[in-house]
C-alpha cells in the first residue's frame, strides 16, 4: 500500500549536482598521519578522557566516556598511541579550538575485542539503548543529537511511527545515497532494531525520488514491517519537520519535539551504525563523507573519524591555489571553513569546494515577499529580518524566530541579496544570551521552589498521600532531560559564528 504524501509549504527546486558522486562507489580514505578526535562531536556535554598520554589503544576502544545523560563516548578510530590530549582546531566558528585526543596510528588498524549482542529482538529496549550509547552513536544526519536520548524519548512515549530519513535534500551531498547503495542490509536491519528499541507501531524508510538505485536496493530487502517511500525532490524535504509533514500530514508543534506527536526520526546512517553496534559490537569509528564541487575527482569516501579534512580533499584532487571556498556540509546550510586541518567528526557529511565569489552587495528589503513564498515554516522572513535588525527581541519572537530552521530558502531567493539567515542566527544568539542572564537570576529561586516542593512531597508521601516516589522519580528525570536539552540548545545557539561582533 502506498502512503499518500502531503505537501509541505514553501521550499525550492534546486539543481542537485549529485550526478558527480552518486554513481561511483565509495573509496576508503587511507590512514592519516595523526587522528584527532574531539571530545565533543555531538550535541550535549563533551566526553571525559579515560586514557593517558602514551597509552596504546586499539581500534574501537573507548577512550573517553560519556559525561552525563546527554553525552556520548568517543572511541579510537584506529590502533596506535595517544600522543596528546589538549586543544586543537575543530573548525567551529565560535570556539575554534576544542579538547581533543590525538592518536598516532601504528598502521595495523587492529580491532579491540568486541562483544556483539545476539538476538536483539529478545533484548529489552532499554538494554539496546545502552548498547547504542556505549557505541558512541550520535545523529549522523548532521545535527549530532545523541541517538540514545532520542531512543529514550521513544521508550518513554508511545511511538506511532519511526521514520528512517534517507532524504538528502541538500544539493551535492550523496553520502547517504552511497551508504544505502552499498550497505542497504545494514540500513534495513538497523531500522528494525531501532523500531524494536522504541517499540514503534510503524516504520517508514524515506528516500528521494532522484535516488533510484537506493530505492531499488532497499526495495529488495524490506518486507511488510517496513514501508518504503519516495518523496519528491524538493529542498528541504529532508528536514525533520518537512519530512514528517509529508509522510504523515502532522505538524510538529511549534517549539515542541516530534515525539510529542508520536514520531521519531533517525537518519539512515544512524540506522546502519546501530546495526553495526548491535550485531557486531562495533562502535562508531568511521563514516561516509562526500567530497565534491570544484575538485578533480569528486567522490564519496569512507573516512575514519579524526582524519583531517585536508587529507580527504587531497584524495579527491583538490587544487590548493587558495582561491576556493570550502564548505562543511551542503551549499544551503553548510558552514564556511577557514582552515583545513580540522578533523572529520560524526556529523561531517560533506566537504564542498566552491569558487570564492564576492558576496553581492546587500540592498534594503523591498518587501517583495518572495521569501514568504519559499519559507517551509510559513514564517514571514522579511518581518523577522526587520525585527532582528532593529534588535526588537519580543517582536522577533512573536514572529516565531525560534521556529526558523535556517534552511536558507529565503536568502536564496531574496532579490536584495540580504543574508537573512545570518541576521536570524545573530538575533537568536542575542536572545539566548539575554535569556541566560535572566535565568541566572531566576535560577536560585527555581531551586528554592523545587526544594520546597520536594520536601513537601516527601512529607505527603510519608503521610501516605502519595504512593512511593516512583512517579516523582520519573518526573525528576524528565525535568533533568528537558533541562539538559535546553542547555544544549543554548550552547548550540552560542556557537553562532556572528555572536562575537555585537555591532
Amino acid at each position, binding site marked *: 500500500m502506498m502512503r499518500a504524501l502531503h505537501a509541505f*509549504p514553501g521550499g*525550492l527546486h*534546486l539543481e542537485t549536482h549529485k550526478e558527480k558522486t552518486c554513481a561511483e562507489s565509495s573509496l576508503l580514505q587511507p590512514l592519516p598521519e595523526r587522528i584527532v578526535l574531539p571530545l565533543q562531536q555531538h550535541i550535549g556535554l563533551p566526553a571525559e578522557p579515560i586514557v593517558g598520554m602514551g597509552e596504546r589503544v586499539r581500534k574501537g576502544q573507548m577512550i573517553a566516556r560519556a559525561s552525563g545523560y546527554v553525552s556520548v563516548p568517543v572511541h579510537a578510530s584506529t590502533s596506535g598511541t595517544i600522543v596528546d590530549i589538549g586543544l586543537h582546531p575543530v573548525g567551529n*566558528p565560535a570556539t575554534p579550538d576544542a579538547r581533543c585526543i590525538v592518536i598516532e596510528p601504528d598502521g595495523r588498524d587492529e580491532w579491540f575485542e568486541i562483544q556483539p549482542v545476539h538476538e536483539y529482538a529478545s533484548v529489552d529496549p532499554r538494554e539496546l539503548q545502552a548498547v547504542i550509547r556505549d557505541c558512541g552513536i550520535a545523529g549522523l544526519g548532521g545535527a549530532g543529537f545523541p541517538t540514545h536520548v532520542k531512543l529514550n524519548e521513544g521508550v518513554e512515549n508511545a511511538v506511532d511511527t519511526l521514520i528512517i530519513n534517507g532524504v538528502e535534500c541538500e*544539493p551535492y551531498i550523496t553520502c547517504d545515497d552511497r551508504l544505502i547503495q552499498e550497505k542497504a542490509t545494514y540500513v534495513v536491519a538497523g531500522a528494525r532494531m531501532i523500531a524494536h528499541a522504541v517499540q514503534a507501531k510503524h516504520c517508514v524508510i524515506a528516500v528521494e525520488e532522484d535516488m533510484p538505485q537506493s530505492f531499488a536496493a532497499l526495495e529488495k530487502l524490506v518486507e511488510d514491517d517496513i514501508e518504503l517511500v519516495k518523496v519528491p525532490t524538493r529542498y528541504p524535504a529532508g528536514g525533520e*519537520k518537512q519530512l514528517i*509533514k509529508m509522510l504523515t*500530514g*502532522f*505538524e*510538529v*508543534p*511549534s517549539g*515542541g519535539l516530534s515525539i510529542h506527536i508520536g514520531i521519531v526520526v533517525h537518519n539512515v546512517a544512524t540506522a546502519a551504525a546501530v546495526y553495526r553496534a548491535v550485531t557486531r559490537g562495533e562502535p562508531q569509528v568511521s563514516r561516509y563523507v562526500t567530497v565534491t564541487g570544484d575538485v578533480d575527482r569528486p567522490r564519496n569516501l569512507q573516512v575514519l573519524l579524526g582524519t583531517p579534512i585536508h587529507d580527504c580533499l587531497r584524495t579527491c584532487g583538490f587544487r590548493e591555489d*587558495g582561491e576556493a*571556498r570550502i*564548505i562543511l*556540509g551542503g*551549499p*544551503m*546550510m*553548510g*558552514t*564556511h571553513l*577557514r*582552515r*583545513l586541518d580540522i578533523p572529520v567528526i560524526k556529523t561531517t557529511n560533506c566537504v564542498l569546494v566552491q569558487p*570564492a565569489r564576492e*558576496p*553581492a*552587495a546587500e*540592498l*534594503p528589503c*523591498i*518587501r*517583495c*515577499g*518572495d521569501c*514568504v*513564498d519559499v519559507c517551509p*515554516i*510559513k*514564517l*514571514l522572513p*522579511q*518581518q523577522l529580518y526587520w525585527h532582528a535588525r532593529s534588535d526588537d527581541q519580543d517582536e522577533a519572537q512573536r514572529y*516565531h524566530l525560534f*521556529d526558523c530552521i*535556517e534552511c*536558507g530558502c529565503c*536568502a*536564496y531567493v*531574496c*532579490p*536584495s*541579496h540580504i543574508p537573512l*539567515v*545570518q541576521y536570524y542566527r545573530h538575533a537568536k544568539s542575542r536572545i539566548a544570551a539575554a535569556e541566560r542572564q535572566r535565568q541566572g537570576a531566576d535560577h536560585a529561586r527555581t531551586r528554592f521552589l523545587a526544594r520546597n516542593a520536594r520536601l513537601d512531597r516527601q512529607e505527603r508521601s510519608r503521610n501516605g498521600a502519595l504512593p512511593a516516589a516512583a512517579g516523582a522519580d520519573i518526573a525528576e528525570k524528565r525535568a533533568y532531560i528537558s533541562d539538559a536539552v535546553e542547555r544544549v540548545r543554548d550552547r548550540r545557539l552560542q556557537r553562532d*559564528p*556572528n555572536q562575537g561582533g555585537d555591532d
Partner: protein
Amino acid sequence: MTEAAFISSPHRHGGATITAVMLRVALALLPGILLYAWYFGIGILIQCVLAACFALALEALLLKLRGRPVGLFLRDGSAVVTGLLLALCIPPTTPWWMVLTGIIFAIAAAKHAFGGIGYNPFNPAMAGFVFVLLCFPREMNSWPAAPGTLETGLGLGDSLRAIFLPGREMVDATSGATALGYMKSRLGLMGMISEIRADPVFGTFGGRGWEWISAGFLAGGIALLVMGIVKWHIPAAMLIALTTVSTGFHLYDADVYASPIFHLFGGATMLGAFFVATDPVSASTTPRGRLIYGALIGTLTYVIRVWGAYPDGIAFAVLLGNAAAPLIDHHTRPRVLGESGSGA
C-alpha cells in the same frame, strides 16, 4: 589558507536582483505605452523619457547628498519605474516643469525623505502624481481629445512645443476630458448613462482609445504574473472588489451607475492593479494581507470615482491602502507550521 571573513550560509543564491525585477516591470509597461502613443500621439513617449531621466538624475543627486553608493542604488532601476508610472498618470502634454515638480515630490519627499528604496511607506509615483494634481488641477485635467474626433493625435512638433514651450496658446486638441471625467461631469448634470455613452469620447467598453491602452497594461500585468514578478493576490483582489461593487450598483440603477466593464477598462484601473498597487515596498506583505489590501484599494477606487471630487480614484485609493498596509500586516501574520490551532 587565508583567514577570509566568515561567510554565513546559504552559500548559493538564485540570482534574482532588484534590477531584473524593475527591468521586467518596465518592459511589461511597454505594450500599454505603445498603444498609448498609437492612439494619442508621440507625446507620451517624450513624457516617459523625460520623467525617467528626471527621476534618475534626482535619485543620483539625493544618493550623493545622503552619502550612499550612487552606482549601486541607481542600478536598481526603481527610479525609472517611478518616472514611467508618473508619466503614465499625467496628461501627455503636461509642461516639463510640472513633470519635474511631480518627480521631485516623488523621489525627494516620498522616497528619500523616508530613507530611500525599501523604506518609503507610500508609492512615490502616486504621491508625486497626487501632488501635481493638487497643485495644477486645470492642467492635470486637460487630456488629449479622443482619437478620431480630430484629424490626428498630436504630432511630434506639437507635443514638444506643449511640453517644452508651455504657456503658448494650447492646441485645441488638449481640451478634452477623459471618459471617466466626462462621465462624472455629465452625471453631475443629471445626465443618463445611456445618453452619456453616446458621446464619441466613449469606445466599445471604456474610453475610446483608453480601453485598448488598458488592455495593453492588462497584457503586461499578466506577463508579470506569469514571470512571478507580481503575485496574484493584489491585482485579483482589487479587480474582483471593483467588479463586485460596481456590478452591485449597476444592477441597482444602470442609468446612474456605470457598468463594471467601464470601470475595469476606464481610467487607470489596469495600470493601478498590476503596476501600482503591487509596488511591494508600500503594499501589504503577508499573503492574506495582500488580499485585504487589494480589495480595499478596489473598493476605495470605486467610492472615489463615484462620490469623490476626482474622476479617477486609483492614486488616492493606493495611497490610502499604503497607509493601511502596516496595520493589515500586523493582523494577518500567517499561522506558522506547527503553531497551535493547526488542523493537523
